[in-house]
């Protein structure tokens, strides 16, 4: 460990800013993922592929079509919702009708994910796509003068948009009528049906919201890394899983907290641990494995994991 770096407050602050903006993205991605798990009790392993496609849709609209950023964000979210809806009808609903088990749903979503990524490779090729400077001014702001903490416009946008989405989702789930219905279905589909809730339409809304969040995460990650490739979902898939396990499967607040935690841990490891950038891909897995062993319900203790 490099001790001289520890004493440098600007370096630490810089890493906190970077870690928080990275974590915010993990949080947005994981919220959608954990929402779908919470309601349906199935792992949607095509969430990362949805995320990737939305990044491409945002890029197409902004870089190729010249649309402004807010429009790009909205378009990506709409695309995400549409893709998730398609997944529900093609990959999940037919299985629910057959009364198939959760294993089948997972396998079906793996198949869907493979198709989505392959089609993206066929359509967009494997070369990296980038935003032109006209979309996102790369010149960062500095807090505390020229030698101070650097924060890019993308990071500001990411933090603002993420917090907004987190608050909006929280309000939607807690306060709205549909939010209540979603929580009821999550608790027990059977009981919800008996109470006259249209379970299928609640599930559709869940997919729409979860997909829109994947879309937002897709475009925001694209803006941060400026590196759009068909394989970009792989980078976030495992991290997303680690975050939802950390926060407790199906727990939305847990996903937010877990997202920020993982973002900070990754960034600080790269900054302070020698060779940290080499092992950064392994951190998510280590966290995942340790939490599963020690506290399978997640750090908030309200996940759906019961020991068998």
């Amino acid at each position, binding site marked *: 460990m490099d001790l001289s770096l520890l004493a440098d407050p600007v370096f630490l602050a810089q890493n906190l800013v970077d870690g928080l903006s990275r974590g915010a993205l993990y949080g947005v991605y994981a919220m959608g993922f954990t929402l779908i798990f919470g309601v349906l009790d199935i792992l949607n392993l095509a969430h990362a592929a949805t995320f990737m496609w939305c990044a491409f849709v945002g890029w197409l609209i902004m870089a190729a079509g010249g649309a402004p950023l807010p429009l790009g964000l909205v378009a990506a979210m709409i695309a995400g919702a549409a893709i998730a809806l398609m997944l529900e009808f093609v990959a999940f609903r037919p299985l629910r009708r057959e009364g198939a088990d959760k294993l089948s749903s997972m396998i079906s979503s793996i198949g869907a994910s493979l198709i989505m990524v392959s089609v993206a490779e066929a359509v967009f090729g494997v070369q990296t796509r980038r935003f032109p400077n006209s979309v996102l001014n790369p010149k960062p702001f500095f807090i505390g003068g020229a030698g101070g903490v650097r924060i890019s416009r993308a990071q500001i946008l990411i933090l603002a948009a993420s917090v907004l989405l987190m608050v909006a989702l929280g309000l939607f789930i807690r306060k709205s009528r549909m939010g209540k219905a979603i929580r009821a279905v999550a608790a027990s589909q059977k009981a919800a049906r008996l109470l006259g809730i249209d379970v299928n339409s609640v599930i559709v809304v869940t997919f729409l919201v979860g997909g829109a969040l994947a879309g937002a995460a897709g475009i925001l990650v694209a803006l941060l890394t400026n590196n759009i490739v068909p394989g970009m979902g792989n980078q976030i898939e495992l991290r997303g899983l680690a975050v939802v396990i950390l926060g407790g499967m199906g727990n939305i607040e847990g996903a937010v907290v877990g997202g920020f935690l993982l973002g900070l841990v990754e960034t600080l490891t790269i900054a302070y641990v020698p060779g940290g950038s080499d092992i950064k891909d*392994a951190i998510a897995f280590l966290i995942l494995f340790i939490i599963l062993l020690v506290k*399978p319900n997640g750090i908030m203790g309200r996940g759906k994991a019961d020991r068998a």
Partner: protein
Amino acid sequence: MKIAPWAVAAVVVAADAYLCVKNPQDLDRLLINAMLALSAFATLHARLLSLASAGFAAIGAYASAIFTIKLGLPVYLSIPAAVLACAAVALVIGLPVLRLKDVYLAICTLGFGEIVRVSIILLPGLTGGATGANLSTGFAYEAMKKTQAWSLALALAFLCYLFWSASRSKTGRALRAIRENPEAAETMGIDVVAYKNMAFLASACIAGLAGAFYAHSIGSLDNGDFKFNRAVDILGYAVFGGSGQWFGPILGAGFLTALPILLRDGLGSSIGFLKDFAQLPNILNGLALMLVIVFAPGGIAALFVRRGERRATGPAKAMKLDALDVLAFAAVGSAARDSAARGLSAGGPGTFLSLSGVGRSFGGVLALSELSFDMEEGRIYGLIGPNGAGKTTLINLVSGLLPPSAGKIEWLGREIQGRKAHRIARSGIARTYQNIQLFGEMSVLENVVVGHHARIRSGLLAAWLRLPSMLREEAEARREALGLLGRLGLSGLAGMEAAKLSYGDQRRVEIARALALQPRLLLLDEPAAGMNEIETAALGDFIVDLKRHGVAILVVEHHMDLIMAACDEIVVLNFGRKIAQGSPAAVSRDETVLEAYLGRE
């Protein structure tokens, strides 16, 4: 014999033969894919969704390469050593994770593949890092290359034999039972977690073997050979081929390996863009996964399975005794006495089954509280009470499916609360279910033979060697099971698929299956539900007969005629509490009981 499945198999074989004749290099690939498919099958068959096969193949490949290059081991040693390395890793990963719900295994194995890949890149000294390892200069590679295809084919054939012989033994039956209904399997004395561990371990070893062959077949390794897509391919082979029969994944691998190449070669000339459509195999694989899971969950192999045949004709359902049946039936009683003689009852007399202060709550709702009562050997106890009184909860507590939240349960002098259900079943407590929990896709006979699981001593090794003792035990178990079925008037239905039976028949199969455990205590949860009056009366006689053979019975029932006629003692529950206990006559006069049932006037 059905034509369609054999036609499918013939097409797959023909396509693969064409492939290999055209390009001999493809034979290695085909055989390795088939091996990897078997590895995925091993987990899927036990109802585990594992995506770890590609990761274990990577470990096997690199380990065997390292053993060959760095340690100079000959190939025939480095490959088994690589398999052992995979086994060690599988134990470390599997033991903790398999105790969790299966969704977590999927998650963990997803991450596992990635961690293997990262480790390979991080250890350049051993693995060649990001640039890869090269074996092709070594002596071993040259020696190996010549023998590659036939040694691979031999290894695959050997694996097929192991799967075939295991599937015809107690191990295969236990795995099928777990696949159909893990909870019922556990209460039939099957250690579900141990079997799942075994399946995971087998899967890892087979994947490692395939990976080791891959290393020596290709001669160079790259960390990208085993990325996530590969894991999905492997899963695709097993799902498409079918996870019900061991030959399914081999057909699946044969089909999905050949299909994209044949499409490209066959149609590439007429449909131009197919020629260099690199994503075609992946897209076909993805489609195969989704289509099969939705439209044909059993995969190709399911075509081969005869379902619901040999329906008995005529009313062969009356519960009658004949000579053979009496023999088998007497065995139940004598076994019960045997297990008593074996000293299972370490405690003194009077502690057959004893509940003291037992309670169970579900999220703050008390389903049972402060329940105490004793059962004596060889008597019939009725457990009655209004709906929601806690009767089924009590049965779940005694059979070990649920741990009590308070109190203790003593069985033959030992406390068994919190003990695993399969151990309780093995110690002589069998049960049936209110909602029938048969192994639906297995035959009636096989359902009952599952009950013999704990008693069949021949393990996996005996099954692989097909020892005469093992074959004898199997035959004996079938004979006894047939006897039990006869005793319950089900002889004519032995070959039927259990799920196709009528409700009342299914209940009787459950009783036969429970009796096959040779229990000293039988817990019956509403055994007469769905039976008509005549059948119910016959069931009552049957229960009384069981008692004469030394089996104690706790029966939950709403048919009061049955309870009054058969029981020696009745326990009445209401709102989770015992409100009365005593002889049928006494209980039927009891004020509190009448009030609970009929309400206060």
